[in-house]
Structures are given as structure tokens and as C-alpha cells.
């Protein structure tokens, strides 16, 4: 009897298994949705960071967009030129041309430069500090230096330097916009790396009122306006604003007479950093 019971159950279970297996096989044939096999291959070639900088919700969606032709391979800002060419060669399409963009901080007032008028104790995130009287810095527009952007950056392209300012590493930054969204003071902007003349200040005060808050504030002296080619820099709301449509006319002489150092000529990385911190933080 025992032998039979084993045999029976094996037969019944095996039969049920076979039946459903057959159903699954049938469903696989009948209900199959054809997908371009190239999507999988392109996804393999993509970096897989899912950063969203291309505008697609992840690398898979971007792979679909590239295969369908609605995006160019170069729209992925994470890949280097070689990887872009690989994807373009695989698909036999034009690689396209993308301008390298990076996140720039429009504030240079770190611990050493910007005045503080109170002490903040509580959650040490910028957003929480900004909820209490705008944060401990005297300048209402300035960087709070509590590293919300460093936390938000998926690619470790941002680290806080010893002056409590976020340093963006241009080679790692993909211009994915995460730091722009997370910053409670809205002082991050994405700009092409070819735009080298930058006003690192958003302070809308002028003269001594601005300089009292921060030693690198734009005090609206208008010297840069005079030194630059006509029309490149203009003063809007007590702040020097660069017209980047005339980026080709910019040159370093515009910064030569700036009394505070609010306007700078940036080649690559924005802020200086001691070696020690660099080695410790950059992975």
C-alpha cells in the first residue's frame, strides 16, 4: 500500500505540473510581446546609474528611447565619449553631440567668508535649518553648508570642503538636477562647462550692506560691467548677471577689478580644497 501511495501522489503531482507547464508554454507563445532585443544589449552598455539626467526615468527607459531613435546616445551625460561611440556603433546611429553641463554653486560664502548671526542646533540638514529663520547665516541667499546636496548626489560628484562649501567634481557630475532640486536656497544651477565666467553670489543687497554679510558678496560696484565686452554683464536687481548668449565674448579680464571676488573665471572645479580632504572624500 505504501508503494502505491507514493506512486499515486507522484503521478498526480507530476500530471498537474505537466499540465500547468504546458499552459505556461502555451501562454508564452500566444501572449508573447515582441521586444527589440537590442534594448537589452544597449542597456548593458549604459552605465546603469539610473540618475535621470537624460530626462528618462532610468537607464532601461533611456535604452528604449535610444533604440526607437527619440534620443541620441550622447544624451546620456554619464558615459564617456568611448561608451557613447560604442552604443552608436552598435545601433549604427549618429552619436549626436551633447554639451557637457555641470552643477555650479552660485555662492562662495563658506565658513571663512560669510557672517553668521546665530547658532543653529537641531537636525543638521540644510532644509531643516532653512525652516528656522532662514538658517544661521546672515545672508538670506547663501549656502547653509549642511550637505543636503552631498547626500542627494547619486554619483558622489559633490563633497563638502573644509570651508563647508559643496565642491562639484566636473568629471563625475552628470547634470542630473538632483542637487538643484534638493537645495533649499536654490543656489545650484546647471550650466555648460564652456561657460567659465560665473558670478558666485545671489545677494540682492548692494554696497556695504552686501559686504557686511559676506566678504565675497557682489556689492554692485559695476566694475565687471565696464571691464567686460559691452552687453556681456548687466546689473539686474543689484546683482551682476552674465548674459550667457554672449558667452563667446567672455574673458578673464572681466574679473580683474572685482573688489570682493564675487565674479570668477572657472576652469573645471569651482572651489579650492586642501589635499587632505580630497583624498579622504573622493572615492
Amino acid at each position, binding site marked *: 500500500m505504501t508503494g502505491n501511495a507514493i506512486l499515486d501522489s507522484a503521478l498526480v503531482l507530476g500530471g498537474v505540473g505537466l499540465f500547468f507547464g504546458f499552459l505556461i508554454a502555451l501562454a508564452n507563445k500566444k501572449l508573447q510581446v515582441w521586444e527589440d532585443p537590442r534594448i537589452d544589449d544597449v542597456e548593458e552598455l549604459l552605465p546603469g546609474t539610473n540618475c535621470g539626467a537624460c530626462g528618462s526615468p532610468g537607464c532601461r527607459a533611456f535604452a528604449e528611447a535610444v533604440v526607437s531613435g527619440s534620443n541620441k546616445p550622447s544624451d546620456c551625460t554619464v558615459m564617456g565619449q568611448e561608451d557613447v561611440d560604442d552604443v552608436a556603433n552598435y545601433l549604427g546611429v549618429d552619436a549626436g553631440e551633447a554639451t557637457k553641463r555641470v552643477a555650479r554653486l552660485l555662492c562662495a560664502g563658506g565658513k571663512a567668508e560669510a557672517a553668521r*548671526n*546665530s547658532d543653529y*542646533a*537641531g*537636525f543638521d540638514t540644510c*532644509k*531643516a535649518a*532653512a*525652516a*528656522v*529663520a*532662514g*538658517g*544661521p547665516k*546672515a545672508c*538670506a*541667499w547663501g549656502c547653509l553648508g549642511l550637505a543636503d546636496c552631498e547626500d542627494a548626489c547619486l554619483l558622489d560628484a559633490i563633497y563638502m570642503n573644509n570651508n563647508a562649501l559643496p565642491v562639484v567634481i566636473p568629471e563625475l557630475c552628470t547634470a542630473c538636477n538632483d542637487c538643484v*532640486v534638493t537645495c*533649499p536656497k*536654490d543656489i545650484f544651477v546647471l550650466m555648460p562647462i564652456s561657460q567659465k565666467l560665473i558670478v558666485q553670489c545671489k545677494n*540682492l*543687497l548692494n554696497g556695504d550692506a552686501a559686504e557686511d554679510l559676506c566678504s565675497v558678496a557682489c556689492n554692485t560696484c559695476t566694475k565687471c560691467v565696464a571691464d567686460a565686452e559691452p552687453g556681456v554683464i548687466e546689473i539686474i536687481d543689484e546683482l551682476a548677471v552674465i548674459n550667457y548668449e554672449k558667452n563667446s565674448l567672455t574673458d578673464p579680464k572681466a574679473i580683474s577689478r572685482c573688489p570682493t571676488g564675487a565674479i570668477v573665471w572657472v576652469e573645471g572645479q569651482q572651489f579650492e580644497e586642501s589635499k587632505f580632504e580630497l583624498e579622504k572624500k573622493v572615492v
Partner: protein
Amino acid sequence: MKGLLSFKNGVHPPENKDITAGIASRRLPFPDEVVLPLSQHIGTPAKSLVQAGDHVERGDVIAEASGFISSAVHATASGTITSIELWPHPGGTMVPSIRIAVDPYSTQLQRPRIVPRWEDVPEEDLSKEIARAGIVGLGGAAFPSHVKLNPPKDQPVELLLLNGCECEPYLTSDHRTMLEQPEKVYLGIRIALKALGISQAVIGIEANKPDAIAMMRNTAPEDLDVTIQPLQVKYPQGAEKMLIKAVTGREVPPGALPAKVGTLVQNVATAANVATVFETGQPLIERIITVTGRGIRQPGNWVIPFGTRLRDVIRHCGGLNEDAAEIVFGGPMMGLGQANLDVPILKATGGILVLSRDECKQQEIMPCIRCGKCLDACPIFLNPQLMGALAKAGRYEEMVTDAHLNDCMLCGCCSYVCPSNIPLSQLFTMSRTQLKKLAAS
């Protein structure tokens, strides 16, 4: 305290009102300069009507309301306008403000005005007069009063509730208003009742102010249908929805106005200032402000013109004690921490609280242990613990959809009871700011 009307949940922090409750209000000397921000109220900022160099008399209108939910700004001292520039605001931003260099040795008398008898003003014009005087709710939110007095047509108001709870610890300005100006409060009630076309009013006062309750009872006019209702001493008894719940037993639905349940809540100080408009023609340019806390040398209740800088107020109150640690505009539960001594006093500033180091012990923030104390404290039955976790994770949209962040009134009960010292209401303020930013982009 048993048997008194109240609401469910809430907290009872140490009252600390004895510091200033017995001090009669006095006028603070006029400062050398007043700075009047164009946005002192909820709604669109006012539109400036003056230029640098203009001379203005105390009580002159210097900025007009720009839209329905907006409020006019008046010169709070006679002087010359030096500039209109960005100036620190108690909210932590820089806003366009009108700076007035106050005339030295001026008598600060106002221009003679023709004041209409309120009995003769048609009902629908009363709220226009109130708008012209720049009256906003003085309970703390600074909502323009003329908007309140024009409730939606489909939600008729049948009961006027006067808020004399002053449930925030330390503050005594409404207490002093009721003790010193009861006849003004009653005149304000009459005017508001006429504007609304109703006849019944209730004044809610917390039971820890027996002298105010007695004063209001003794001075109550016989021809006015007004009840003085003592309420249990509990925070936030003076929150609009809690007061309605305590007095009428009705619950205002989420997102709705008090008019939905047939009520309208007005602060006693607002009522007193409405009366002033029709008594002397003086617009809203000053109010009783409690300057208190153990960090200030000479606490008291002061009549302070708006726009006086915090620095000047502190100087006139004897300066700071050596252990002064934190300055808050408003009460300790909901007030705004200040980072700049140049910020001006606003219409909604009911108190200036200077806390000493002992009063605001800094405690380490520890992880949530899910004890549920915040749930028992929340007067509107939210789940602060869940909202706090979502806020920390940056999941702001879920806070609104799953945890009803928009119903939170930031009363701070949850932060007060949290044994892990988590500043929950700060997280909620932060989340709202962030949500506003996301909505704008």
C-alpha cells in the same frame, strides 16, 4: 479643572504667565527708525504708495492692499521715508520694506480724521472700513480681517467666537487687553456682529485668567447676547478649530473654513483694534506686545508701534541677561525663532520671548522609539510619527496623501511630548516649504 469645556488630546506645558500677567501695559518710547515690511499678513504683499524723501504722519497709509486677500500698511510713526529696500523679515527672508526715520521730538499726534459713526455705516461697508485700516487677525496668523468678515454666501455664520484663550505659555498680551480694554473688546464685538448680520457671540477664556473672566463678566453690556465661557487650561485651546470644538462641540472638516460649521473666530485683540478704528480713526499701527522670558532684564506688556526693530525693543526693556540664549517671536510652542536683531515687529507679533539657557535646554535628537506619545498629543488626530519618518526620508508627497500634512496646524504638541526630542513640527514646516517649491517648479 474638571467639567470645563475642552477638546481631546493636547498638552499642558508650564504656563510661565506670572512673569508679566500682573504688569499693566505701557507705551514703549518711539524708536529712531521704524521698518515696515510690505508683507505682514497672509496673502499678496501690499503695494507701496510712497517714495524716499516723502514725509508721513503717524497713521497715514503708505501701502495699499493689492488684491482681495491683502492688507494695507500704515505709517506707525511720523517721519521721513529714507528708502524702500530689502530688509530682514522675521520669517527668515529679505522682503521689500519701507524705512521711516522717525522725527525726533515729534508729539506723534495723528492727523485729525473724520470718523464715521459705526452705527450709521451700512453693514456691507463696515468690512471696507476695516480693510482700509489694515486690520489683520492678531492671534498670530495675520489673516486679513475684512476677508474673514465676508464669509462665503453658502456658508452663513450664526455664531461669533471671541478668542481670549491665549493658550501659548508666557504670553499675556490678550490677557492685558481684556483687563484693560474690555469696553473696546465689546465695541469690536458689536461691529463684527453688525458686519456679519448676526446677534450671538461667545468669548472663550482659559480658566487660568479668572480676573479676565470676571472683568469681561462685570463689563458685559446688557443689550448684547454674549456669553463668557471659561475653558480648560490646555494647549492649543486657542487654535481656531480647537476653540470651536470646545465651545460648540462642532468639528470643522479638513480643509474647510470655520464658516462651514456656522462660526467665525476672532481674537480679542483684533476686536479691540476694530473698535479703535471707529473710535478715533487710528488704523492698525500698534498693539500690546508681551516682552518676556528669563533672558530679558525688564519683562512687561508694552504698546509697541509696528516696525520697531527687535534691537530697540530689547534696549528699552533693559537689555538681555547674560544667559539669554534664544529669541522667539510669538510663544514658545509656535513662535518663530529669530536670527537677526534688526527684524521689525509685525502686526502678528503677539510676544517677544527671550529664553534663557535654562529655559531652552538643548537636547540630543535621538531615534524614534515608536512610543505613540505624539499620537496621543495631536489635537487633530494625525500620526506625527509617520509624518516625521516620511519627512526624514524626503517623501513629501506621501506626507500629504497618506498622513494629511495639510491639516497639521504646526501647534508643536508632538515635538513637546517626544521623549526622543525629535523636532517634528520643524520637519513639517520644512516639508511644506519643500512641497511649495516642488509645486512651483
